[in-house]
Every structure is written in structure tokens, then in C-alpha cells.
């Protein structure tokens, strides 16, 4: 790679902030989960870039753990989406703003 490390970090930052904005601004649970996916992938891009920069394989192995973590997170959160849809009939987060014990 002939590209400077700065450009790689800037690209990862842009992707991460896009996901961050999606999580903050959207009101649809599925879109919020998509934002989390984007953020996790940006972190993975940083790790792969660091792995290439220091020529060590450890960064790539961390990405494997990141993928396993994402699979676990997505399976549980999508089950939660189905549960909430069954319970309230909507996946708009504004309908889950109350707490009753």
C-alpha cells in the first residue's frame, strides 16, 4: 500500500461518524442496528490498517473477534426487535419511552 496512514484513519473516521449519526438521528430500530454495523465495520477497517502498518497479524485477529461479537449482538438484537414488534406492534423507538415496573 502506498497510501498514508492518515488517509486510512480519515476514511475510517468518516464511516464511523456516518454510523454514529445514523444511530442518533433515526427512529427505526432496524436503522439503528444498521448504524451500529457501520460503526463496527469502521473500527475493523482501522484494525486492519494498523495491522498492515506494523506488519503484525494481531490486528486482523482482533477483527475476527469483532465479527464474532457482531454475530452475537445481531442475533440477540434482532430477536429483541421481533419481541418488541410482537409486544407493541411497532419498531419505532418513540413507542418504547415509558417504564412500568
Amino acid at each position, binding site marked *: 500500500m502506498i497510501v498514508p496512514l*492518515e488517509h486510512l484513519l480519515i476514511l475510517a*473516521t468518516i464511516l464511523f461518524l*456516518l454510523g454514529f*449519526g445514523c444511530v442518533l438521528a433515526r427512529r427505526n430500530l432496524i436503522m439503528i442496528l*444498521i*448504524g451500529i454495523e457501520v460503526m463496527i465495520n469502521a473500527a475493523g477497517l482501522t484494525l486492519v490498517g494498523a495491522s498492515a502498518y506494523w506488519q503484525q497479524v494481531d490486528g486482523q485477529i482482533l*477483527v*475476527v473477534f469483532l465479527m464474532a461479537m457482531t454475530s452475537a449482538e445481531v442475533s*440477540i438484537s434482532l430477536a429483541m426487535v421481533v419481541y418488541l414488534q410482537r409486544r407493541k406492534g411497532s419498531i419505532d423507538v418513540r413507542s418504547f419511552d415509558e417504564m412500568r415496573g
Partner: protein
Amino acid sequence: MTATLLFYILGAIAVIATLLAITRKNPVHAVIYLVNSFFALALLFYLLGAPLLAAWELIIYAGAIMVLFLFIIMMLQLSPTSDTIGSGETRRQWIPVMLLTLALATCTLLLTALDPSGAEAVPRWYASPRDFGYALFKEYALAIEIVSFQLLFAAVGAFYIGRPERKKTEPGGAE
């Protein structure tokens, strides 16, 4: 030189596809654009010397996780109009988000500019799947076991949350 050009093209594709994905009204369109973005990211991983991770990015993210999203969206029959962007209320919601994101972007760019080692080029390097697997199952064997436990717990948790609802019977029988 070709690799450098490819890096910028793929980076632009990833950013544009992600930008389109997060602004779609219909979650199905968002998922399709996100698959596009993941393809670009997988090629970036390949350029950065991680061919195995590039394959896994496609198989696990684009293949498995995004199809799971599509499956859930189609199972729930979500209406695309549940989250409108154009209305005035949501447009006002985007303003603080934009400000916060821009502030964070400025801080990160300043931090990147502060470090002189950031201007150094990333060397051309390649981790063969053999080296990768050796490190994964030799040095990180315990972590692999823990990750397998994590996946098992996630499966159990998903089964528990998604179980069909049963009629609740009071233990005291007061009904």
C-alpha cells in the same frame, strides 16, 4: 500506483454507499446499499493484506448478517413510511446530530494531524492465511474458546427472547 488509486475509489464507494444506506426510508433499500458498502470494504481489506478477512467480510457480513436483517424485515412486514426524513420534526432532529458529528470529526482530524507518524505510508504487506491461522489457533486459542462460549450464549439468549408467548398462570392460582 494502481493500489493507491484503487484505495481512493473503494473508499469513495464505501462512503457514498453508507451515506445512501443511512438516509433511506425503506430498510430493505438500506440493507442493499450496506451490502454494497461491505463489498467495497472487503476489497479494502484485501488491499491492506488481509485476504482471509476479505472473504469472511463477504461471507459473514454481506452473506449472513445482512440476510438475517432482510429476513427479519420481511418477516415483520415493516412499512417503509414509519421513519420519514423529510418532515420538519425529523429535520430538526438532524441539526444537533450534525453538530455533534462535525465536532467529533474536527477533533479526530486535529488528533490525526498532531501525530507526525500518520503521514508515513502504510507498507505493502500480506498476511498469508497460513500465518493468520497459526497465530489464531496458537497464540489466541483461549480467546477462541471464549468467543465460542459467547456465540453459544447469544444463541440461547436469542431462543429465550424469541420464544412463543404462553398464557401466564399465576403460581398462587388467584385468578
